[in-house]
């Protein structure tokens, strides 16, 4: 059982530190991406400027349900991060996070705008693509550690990556989708131009878009947290693994075109399930 102090710490870190960290990472990401494209790029703090500006803009809505959905997305993302820092059940964290995804979709669908709706449908397809892969990665972790709890992973003697290398790849596959990076920036792209405008984000504006951005900061932290678990034995190892993974994501983002969702579903399932199967069988055999 967690001590009260630990609980409070997790709460504070999860609610307040995580989005700041997430924003910084997003800023760094934009900076590195710019450098990769031979540009100077925005300041590291740019995501915060963006959010602050959006918060100060006029409230413009198609219906109030949109505002509610954006808000639920934020709460779900924050809750999942808090649960993560409380070293709770991974599967549960993941399901709580799915609440956000579902409400984002519902919020986008609540507007009869074709771009928003197509974005929502694509977002659902993305959920459909990454969710099984993530569940299977978690199952693999369970097979390896005997528990879904994060605390169980920290109890490990040696890094999980050594035993679950293929599942780590699968995780990377799934997280590229979640991070909205090319080739999977299908339902809504960060800033690139897209045939569906900005997909799920199209009809959100001003403060409500800011809420979604903040929620995305939380998600970035959750995603990188998941990655860090694969080298849970040393703090340096964690940092190195997270940094390398994120760099790889940025690199992939910059050397591939956006694919179609049909390709995404079939390829992610084909590759992801095969890798999972091999890794899981090698664990259980």
């Amino acid at each position, binding site marked *: 059982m967690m001590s009260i102090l630990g609980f409070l710490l997790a709460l504070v870190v999860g609610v307040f530190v995580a989005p700041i960290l997430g924003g910084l990472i997003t800023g760094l990401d934009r900076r590195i991406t710019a450098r990769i494209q031979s540009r100077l790029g925005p300041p590291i703090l740019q995501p915060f400027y963006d959010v602050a500006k959006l918060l100060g803009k006029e409230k413009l809505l198609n219906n109030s349900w949109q505002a509610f959905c954006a808000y639920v997305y934020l709460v779900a993302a924050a809750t999942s991060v808090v649960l993560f820092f409380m070293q709770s059940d991974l599967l549960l964290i993941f399901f709580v996070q799915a609440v956000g995804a579902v409400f984002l979709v519902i919020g986008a669908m609540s507007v009869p705008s074709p771009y928003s709706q197509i974005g929502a449908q694509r977002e659902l397809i993305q959920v459909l693509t990454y969710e099984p892969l993530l569940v299977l990665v978690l199952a693999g972790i369970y097979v390896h550690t005997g528990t879904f709890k994060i605390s169980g992973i920290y109890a490990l003697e040696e890094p999980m990556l050594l035993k679950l290398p293929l599942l780590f790849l699968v995780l990377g596959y799934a997280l590229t989708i979640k991070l909205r990076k*090319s080739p999977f920036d299908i339902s809504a792209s960060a800033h*690139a131009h897209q*045939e569906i405008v900005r997909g799920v984000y199209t009809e959100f504006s001003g403060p409500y878009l800011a809420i979604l951005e903040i929620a995305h900061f939380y998600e970035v932290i959750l995603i990188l947290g998941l990655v860090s678990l694969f080298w849970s034995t040393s703090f340096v190892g964690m940092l190195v693994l997270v940094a390398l993974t994120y760099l790889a994501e940025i690199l992939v983002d910059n050397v591939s075109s956006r694919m179609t969702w049909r390709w995404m579903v079939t390829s992610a399932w084909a590759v992801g399930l095969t890798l999972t199967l091999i890794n899981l069988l090698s664990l259980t055999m």
Partner: protein
Amino acid sequence: MAQTILPFGPQHPVLPEPIHLKLTVEDEIVVDALPALGYVHRGLEKLCDIRDYNQMVQIVERVCGICSKIHAMCYCQGIEEMMGVEVPDRAKFLRVIWSELHRVHSHLLWLGLFADAFGFEALFYQFWKIREKVMDINEATTGNRVIVSVNQVGGVRRDLSAEQLRWIDAELKVVEAQVRALRATTLDDYTVKKRTKGIGVLSSAQAMELGAAGPTLRGSGVAQDMRQLKYAAFDRLDFQPISYPDGDSWSRCAVRYDETLQSIDLVRQAMARLPEGELSVKVKGKPEGEVVTRVEQPRGELLYYLKGNGTNNLDRCRIRTPTFANIPPLVVMLPGLELADVPVVVLSIDPCISCTER
């Protein structure tokens, strides 16, 4: 089956220009696409009534900013033919140099936009970065980056010094090397091929029947290029049209990629063979009669029909731009594609709406 009906344009992030497509999709497969134009229509052909034939050079140059130089050249050639003016050799070569530089910058621009259409941002930036060198050449030699205003009836307005020629040569070397370095990414990358190969197929028979022009036609295996007409100084340059047989977006991309390099080569050839001489001849008299003249724009065959009536103002100035010819093939290509392929295919004809609608 439930259908989604959506307006694609006039304002749309993937469309640099306003065009509207009413798309009907099922599960993101396009079942119907109906275009609507008129968002850029100015009616500038009509300006020939109130501007004299010399002023019209500046106006037709602004039909389209990306191929402005070639519009002006085509117009000037028409007037010169009508009035029986023989342009000095040096002017002809200079016209080729600037028009091919224009083609290079237009194709680089297109390659970037095309990359953007399938979401390859880094490639977009890369091509546009390279393009800036060509823009610098434009700016340094003509006084403006985009609308160069170097043509006039009877010749050209500016000259290139020997020093400038050397500098252009050096700059083009860099451009060529950088473009070549992107060949594998543009034409051989897995993700790019997945998004372009077999997408928006137009057979050569279809292309001919629908009146396609330029790289769209050549991408369907018909090797027809107006530069074969040997206008300006093309009669003294080595030139073979480039064509690819498949008729898909990839082929059209490959045609333009190769043409970029080819144009750089043509600029070099023209610079090497540049004769000394006058830049322009004095034009006397007033245009009278009818003339049809054609040149190759970056987007394809450009046709001017000019009719003079013996006054300073033309009777009729009719401009048939390549995109105008490529819209019917586009409408035929769209059904059956995925929604995500729509920008790719729309871009693959290199639409220039301001050309189309004038």
